């Protein structure tokens, strides 16, 4: 893993420590992540159980029923929690599967980070540059 020693454990540890996610407020749900080997196949090797109560979050390894059960390989989960893989893209590619409430999964993805290297900044472009580019494009 090049993005930190234990990205999955440290992500859930940070989530548990924070205990509250503002973008989860007004939402309550439980999610269970069944994490299998790197390839995403086989029996789950570890579980993460997340409860959300109006934004308040607890994390455990409980194996209980949940509103949403997400099945994913450890490598892909590592990529998700470090912003190197987009959750919706992963779902569309079949890298993760969901059982139960899609709404809970959509809520959960709000706490995932953006891609490493995204700064939110971009240099302004002058009117002359826009005009020149359009002229070049014909």
């Amino acid at each position, binding site marked *: 893993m090049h993005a930190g020693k234990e990205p999955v454990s440290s992500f859930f540890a940070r989530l548990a420590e924070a205990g509250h996610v503002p*973008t989860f407020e*007004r939402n309550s749900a439980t999610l269970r992540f069944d994490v299998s080997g790197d390839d995403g196949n086989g029996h789950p090797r570890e579980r993460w159980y997340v409860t959300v109560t109006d934004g308040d979050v607890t994390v455990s390894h409980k194996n209980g029923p949940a509103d949403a059960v997400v099945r994913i390989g450890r490598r892909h989960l590592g990529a998700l929690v470090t912003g190197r893989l*987009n959750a919706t*893209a992963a779902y569309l590619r079949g890298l993760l599967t969901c059982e139960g409430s*899609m709404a809970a999964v959509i809520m959960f993805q709000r706490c995932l980070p*953006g891609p490493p*290297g995204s700064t*939110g900044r*971009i240099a302004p*472009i002058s009117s002359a540059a826009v005009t020149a580019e359009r002229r070049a494009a014909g």
Partner: protein
Amino acid sequence: MSDRLVQILEGNTFVVSDDRGDIEARADEPTGLFSFDTRFLSTWVLTVNGERLTALSTDDLQYFQTRFFLVPGTGSVYVNATMTVIRQREVADGFHEQVRVLNHSAEPADATIRIDAASDFADLFEVKDALRKRGTYARDVTGGGLVLRYRRDSYVRETWICSSAPAAIDERGLEFTVTIPPHGEWTTELDVLATEAGQHSLAGGRLAHADMARGLEKWLDKAPHLRCEWEPLEQIYRRCLTDLAALRFSTLTMPGRSLPAAGLPWFMTIFGRDSIFTSLQALPFVPELAATTLRALAERQGTRTDDFRDEDPGRILHEMRYGELTAFEERPHSPYYGTADATPLFVVLLDEYERWTGDTKLVRDLEPAARAALAWIDQYADLQGNGYVSYQRRNPETGLENQCWKDSWDSISYSRGDLPGFPRATCELQGYAYDAKVRAARLARLVWRDESAARQLEKEAASLKRRFNKDFWVADGEYFAVALDADGSQVDSLTSNIGHLLWSGIVEVSKARAVARHLTGLRLYSGWGVRTLADGEARYNPIGYHTGAVWPFDNSIIAWGLRRYGFKQEAAAVAAGILEAAEVFAGRLPEAFGGYPRSLTRYPVQYPTACSPQAWSTGAPLLLLRTALGLEPHDDHLLIDPALPKRIGHLELLDVPGRWKRIDAFGRGLIDTDRFTER
């Protein structure tokens, strides 16, 4: 040749075929069975005894159902045909097709009936741009049918085809060798299912077709009933409601509820801006669309910084897609956030929705989302640090250059024709931001019980209005500049955007008269509607998409704005022009039509576009009805203040839903709009 295209749909599954029901799509051709932005069938051809068929007639029974009457043979050969073929097709998660072959002769008929099927599994984006596929294809003949499969790594999409009548199935299709008795018929039911990797369909449960038809009747019945002396208006109204039903789209998180998708068929997905505007237009008629739109957009509100998707915390999405290019992050639509207006408009819709419905629960549920949207306006949208909302894409390859509703490359220009740099702060964005603050202040006071936030928002709104009326005002022309450029200088062309400013209420009363005069003046008003760009500007072109064409949606917002400032005659003129255009288009307004003077073409000239109906064009007559009747919620009452064009005559809108339960609105056309529309 069969050139006419037939399209039917349900949700975001749709079929585009020729008028025989056949599909023969080339890679860059937009025909086929599509679901979740992916083509699941690119070939679907019916032959009888090796011959193609000829269409006698095609009945569009419902938006999700078509019947094709066909005879074997092409050209003049079919004249003596003794067989008729009837295909009836209904869209669900894929489609269901009944094929009936009728033998009209007194002798038994031997026939070989064949369906050829294939799929290229193209992403909609690939169809538009003719891109090449990276995955591999497979075909399986299984016990009951034929499976077409596409695989790229873990991404798998499959088309399942099966038949009720026994068939010889090979990798290219299904074949039936039958003998049809004299004056008898042969029938089979074909099912085509679009799926993910042998799982159940992406869309969830399959809808019963009878339920769909009943659903449409119920939908029409639930909406207010309209009676009008000018009969075309009744037809326009019914067309709008039916098209709005066809444009309903359910998200995976709220399967039982629907929101308006942007357009049929290529934009059957959530678009922040289009879904919000259409929900606003339809509020007095089908308020539940707004509730679903607000919830769906809040679920997907931005929470992080993602340059590829132009995502920021609090930003409302622009467009959501489900195809292969999105799945592999080759396109940013998972979702893409590159729009500067959806975020303030989200707050505007939330307030307007509460004013109509009194649904304070939704306002409470979405308080965090609304506050995050307001924070986006101040913290992330002010790219120039001058207190104005502006935009510039951070994804130069596949992001959007113009992140306002006029999103084509040349839509924002100086009067002399050159293009401004980036960031750009277009004027209507400031209006939306102002309105969002004013409306949020009301919600903060009324529902969130936060007086200090309400005062702060009102203070910010007042300051924004003051600065805006100074910085954007083109004094010698007496109108508002379309934008401020990267240097904070005015982009000085005269555009329809000034009408949106009236709607938002950001225009100082002393300047409103001049703005209204421009909107109905010779340079902007064509006689059918307000042009996107004024005649006389360097880039003006009557068939320029955002540089001169007339957009019905734009005009409906403009009429609303004119009414807000008390310009009843001008608002009635805009309504009259657009509704008369709608009559010419048999009730279905196109996305845009030519900005030629009305006297020059006599009929509005449709702008060539593949998308019809378009959601916010469908919503335009609805909003024009609202503005013409002067419907305005006030506490628990509905105020009615008609200012109708004369031609409309007597108008009744019965059972308008809202916090008052149901109210009837009546009006009589008294305003002579000829002096505007006769030009």
